């Protein structure tokens, strides 16, 4: 059974490595990920938001929901620590 698992693992790994050959090369400006929204953020961020820092504009304005729930996750973590550690007290 262990040998079967090993064979399956090796075959899956080989398949993934074979598939990785078809990826666009690292940092290729013509790859699909670089052509979709990146040029718009790079060229239009300052006109649309007047924020000189592109990273902040994407983080807080274009991707506002993401940052809202990141903050909520931090809040939930702190409240969880509060509940767990104070629940152990006798007084």
């Amino acid at each position: 059974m262990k040998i079967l698992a090993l064979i399956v693992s090796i075959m899956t790994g080989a398949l993934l490595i074979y598939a990785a050959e078809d990826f666009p090369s690292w940092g290729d400006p013509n790859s699909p990920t670089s052509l979709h929204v990146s040029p718009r953020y790079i060229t239009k961020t300052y006109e649309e938001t007047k924020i000189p820092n592109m990273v902040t504009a994407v983080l807080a304005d274009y991707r506002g929901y993401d940052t809202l729930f990141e903050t909520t996750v931090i809040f939930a973590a702190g409240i969880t620590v509060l509940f767990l550690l104070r629940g152990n007290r006798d007084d």
Partner: protein
Amino acid sequence: MIEKNENIILKNITQYLVAFIQLFGLYVIAHGHGSPGGGFQGGCILAASYILMITTLGIEDTKKKYNEFKKHLFNSLGVFIYAFTGFVCLLLGANYLDYSGLSNLFPVDPIKARYIGTFVIEVGVGITVMSIMLTIFVELLTVKRKQS
């Protein structure tokens, strides 16, 4: 529990250093637009100043400055500022978290309103991150195990 440190050099240096660290944290939050930084980083720096105070001046003296009420208030105030800003945008006729709707409230054009909205939510993120970092540190420091 960390006891009060009686070393006079540490105590005096800390008192002056904390002011500069907090000023730097506020700078990082306020200039998150133009330079690397923002709410998360600035909040961590502000929390670090309080952690410095706890480790040198002792937890009892620090709690006089940052008491339970402030802790519980600031924990949720930051998330509230963030979500409430989005809700105000909704009330003013824009989408949720679309800060250009704030131009109906302030006498600025919609593009500048997005700038202001970004600043407001960065402040909210900074408050929550500062308070939560400090809460986790203080709670782990003062935890009492059950006698089993």
